[in-house]
């Protein structure tokens, strides 16, 4: 069951029980009060009647005679005196009625029962549609005992209670209907943010993380919707990140297989030609040449790949203080054919926190890239200096530069700005990916600034170390 009907039903239930209890109590107390009032009033009236009868009969006795007729006469005059609208009375002697103005519906035996109950009792009796209070009192005059039995109509008290109950019932129904409507409206209003939230979470479940619940209310539901928004935002970011990663992995795999396919095609094709039949010696020599070269390329590719994989798996490096000048010397030594191009400016005292071999590798890759850019001055400038961010290592060339559109991608594996030239120069498309990885392991990033035809500058911040 939904929340709204649940709440409305609960409210209705509670309200109904409260109303019923309250109404019932009201009815009860009201009736008891009315009944007590009627009883008090009627007891008084009965006492008055008894008193009247007694004194009236006494007067007759003072005349020296008390005939039956006198009693009857006096009863009549008393009847006139007290009025007959509400019930009536009867005078009994020895269980025999001398005079009676009691309502006909009242049975004789009930009257006798009232006499039997005595002077300190009050009976409630139903006769026909009406209810009567019955009271009896003894009157002794001149040695004779008479009983006055009075009946007082209290139907009104019961009828009033019935009327009140009906009125109350209607009122309660109206109140419930009103309360139900009001509750439904209020609850609907209150759970509106919840509905929004539900819609939003459905959307999230369906993969749409853009919906925001944006509730202004300050209650718990509002807080929930806000934290839900925060949650979707986080999830959205994470999903974006994951999708990004997956995309990059897909791209990597696609690029990798693509890179594999070209050499494989050559190797398979030429070897197939070779083995299928005789060839003229020149073609044969060239075919073998191609096979060898493409195999070499594969070997280099796998080597670089292994290195990159190794670095990717490696989470942290143990960095130790290294003289930067020594690293640069290593780099120069490993590139004898490029040595004449290098122009190194580095304070020999500069010490950085680094893995010496990896850093040398990084610089070597950057230098090779710079050299491939065919600088106009045939120079690759390597400078190192101290700044507030630590030590900045800079590799700059005045080569052909990198197109702006390619700049964000150049550190992706297998990305080549100019594929055929890169191939011709034995590039694998892995160099800068390696460099970026090594930089990251040093807690830094590579910063490229480049202009077409004017050259490229790569900067790397390194932490300063002490020997």
């Amino acid at each position: 069951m939904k929340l709204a009907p649940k709440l409305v039903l609960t409210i209705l239930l509670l309200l109904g029980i409260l109303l019923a209890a309250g109404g019932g109590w009201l009815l009860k107390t009201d009736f008891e009060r009315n009944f007590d009032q009627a009883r008090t009033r009627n007891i008084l009236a009965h006492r008055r009647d008894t008193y009247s009868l007694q004194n009236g009969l006494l007067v007759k006795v003072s005349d020296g005679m008390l005939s039956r007729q006198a009693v009857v006469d006096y009863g009549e005059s008393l009847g006139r005196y007290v009025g007959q609208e509400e019930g009536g009375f009867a005078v009994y002697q020895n269980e025999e009625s001398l005079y009676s103005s009691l309502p006909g519906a009242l049975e004789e035996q009930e009257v006798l029962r009232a006499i039997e109950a005595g002077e300190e009792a009050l009976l409630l009796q139903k006769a026909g549609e009406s209810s009567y209070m019955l009271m009896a009192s003894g009157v002794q005059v001149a040695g004779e005992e008479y009983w006055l039995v009075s009946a007082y109509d209290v139907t009104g008290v019961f009828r009033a209670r019935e009327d009140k109950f009906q009125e109350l019932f209607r009122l309660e129904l109206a109140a419930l209907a009103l309360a139900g409507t009001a509750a439904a409206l209020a609850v609907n209003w209150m759970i509106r943010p919840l509905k929004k939230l539900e819609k939003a979470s459905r959307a999230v479940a369906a993969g749409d993380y853009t919906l925001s619940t944006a509730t202004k209310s300050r209650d718990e539901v509002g807080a929930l919707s806000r934290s839900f928004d925060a949650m979707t935002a986080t999830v959205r970011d994470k999903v974006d990140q994951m999708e990004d990663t997956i995309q990059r992995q897909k791209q990597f795999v696609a690029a990798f297989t693509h890179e594999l396919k070209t050499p494989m095609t050559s190797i398979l094709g030429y070897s197939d030609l070779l083995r299928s039949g005789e060839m003229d010696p020149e073609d044969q020599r060239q075919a073998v040449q191609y096979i060898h070269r493409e195999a070499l390329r594969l070997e280099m590719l796998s080597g670089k790949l292994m290195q990159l994989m190794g670095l990717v798996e490696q989470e942290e490096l143990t960095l130790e203080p290294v003289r930067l000048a020594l690293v640069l010397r290593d780099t120069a030594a490993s590139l004898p054919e490029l040595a004449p191009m290098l122009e190194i400016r580095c304070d020999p005292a500069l010490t950085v926190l680094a893995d010496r071999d990896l850093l040398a590798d990084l610089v070597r890759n950057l230098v090779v890239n710079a050299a491939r850019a065919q600088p106009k001055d045939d120079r690759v400038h390597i400078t190192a200096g101290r700044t507030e961010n630590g030590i900045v290592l800079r590799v700059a060339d005045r080569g052909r530069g990198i197109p702006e559109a390619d700049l964000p991608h150049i550190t992706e594996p297998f990305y080549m700005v100019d594929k055929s030239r890169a191939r011709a120069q034995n590039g694998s498309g892995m160099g800068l990916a390696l460099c970026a990885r090594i930089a990251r392991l040093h807690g830094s990033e590579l910063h490229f600034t480049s202009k077409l035809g004017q050259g490229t500058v790569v900067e790397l911040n390194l932490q300063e170390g002490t020997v």
Partner: protein
Amino acid sequence: MKQKLFTAAAFLAVFAFLALVLAAPLPLMERSDEVLYTQVMPRQLAADGQSAEARSIDFARQLYDRDQLLGIKNYAGSILRLTDEETLGDAPYRLYDFLGQMDFWGEEEQAELERQIANAPPPWRSASDNVGFSAWNLSTTWDGEHWFSLQWELSAEGQLVRMRMRTPLEYTGQDLEHLMDEYLAVTGLDALEDWQAREVTVQLAVDEQSTAVLRARYSTGAKLYLYANYVDGTLVFGVCPLEKEELDQLDVSLTEK
């Protein structure tokens, strides 16, 4: 679909329950009524305003009950009905019987009373409350010239409740005390031991030349006020039920005048 059905069922159940709950007073009422109709309820016999001692005296009780139940004090002239001599019957003799028992009532007073009653021409006037007490109001002359209203009230058993008559005799305070003592003795009210004299100073507008002797007593147990006045030739005495609060108010109103 299932959910909607369930919700509808829940609503129906709740409505049914609510109807039951709202209608619950009906059977409860019937149950309590049944008890009411079958049980014998207690009834208080009388309002115990008076002490037990006072209630044991018939006259005191009758006075008090008449006041309580019918709201009739001995204020004369309430319901008047023209009557004739036949109706009057033995009423004067019943008065004479009572007065004759009083040591205070001398022959002079008796002669004057009889003369006044004899002088009273028909129609007689009587005011009776029809509950055993009968009050009489006779227009008569007291010295053969001046009209005057002679009033008395008797209980069913012939006890004088009050009396007012014009008299040529003069009474002192001492006489009035005597009258009260005698009255209490004849009515049996002297059995009450808590009669206390009340100081009554001024009453009504009294001429400077005229004499005004006022005496009163009050019994807290019986809640009865006994009074005897002699003002300017008129003798008034009697007893009437009076609550203590009413008495206090009476005092206040008296002193104010």
